């Protein structure tokens, strides 16, 4: 890292680039099949184009307690 380590852990993570909406949003979709043996559901509707937002919302809905 170019800058000296910030005193606060939170600032350190932010400075490292974590907390950027882009990378975080995409990898959220990885949670769909986290365990081995979980059958991959056929791509729902075989979505054309990139629709991360709809994906994430749908996934979060399935994890609601």
């Amino acid at each position, binding site marked *: 890292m170019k800058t000296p380590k910030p005193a606060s852990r*939170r600032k350190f*993570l932010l400075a490292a680039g974590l907390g950027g909406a882009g990378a975080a949003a995409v990898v959220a979709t990885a949670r769909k099949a986290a365990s081995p043996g979980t059958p991959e559901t056929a791509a729902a509707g075989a979505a054309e184009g*990139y629709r991360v937002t709809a994906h994430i919302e749908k996934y979060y809905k399935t994890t609601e307690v």
Partner: protein
Amino acid sequence: MSAQTAAAPLAFHRTLPPEEAARGHFYALLARMLNAPPDAGLLRDIASAPPLDPDGDAALAQAWNSLVAAASVMDAEAAAEEHDALFAAPGKAPVSLYAGFYMGATAVEHPRVRVRADLAALGLAPRSTEPEDHLGGILEAMRVLVAGGGGRGPAPLAEQRRFFEAYVAPAAGPFFEALGAAEPSNFYRRVAAVGAAFVALEAESFSLD
């Protein structure tokens, strides 16, 4: 993130700060890649991801951007073959997915025994389909400790750190190194680079305050 219902077992949900959510997502992605090869949808999503700022953690940014680029030219069938070649041959796989292998485990002190107990203490159940020290399972457990899930909220940092130092720190470094060096590794070389850089970042972050 998840909606509150009248019967929710937790008192309240605080929204996770974005940097903590991002940590959880990296654990999720790494676990996902170990448990199974990426499907076409996941490759597409990674390929569409924006780059990480190289002014942040340079190693992680470089590794992530390289993974993004690789995802855009990778197809799911090739990824599945690679995953198989790396991990699937029982007893002959070039890369072990089990933490015990990298921790010099003896039968008595095997991390499988300790992981099971630690997971239970954290309110998590190990997966029934795999030995408890499967690194996909360990990284998935970290995801839950960081971001919550499976009916529990995020764990305090001290608990995250204890689990990280017990199972992730000793095993993940050697594992990702072995993964990157293995002959069949191509796409997974980039996965290994992201894993190594992220775990190093985590170790440094836990050492602060």
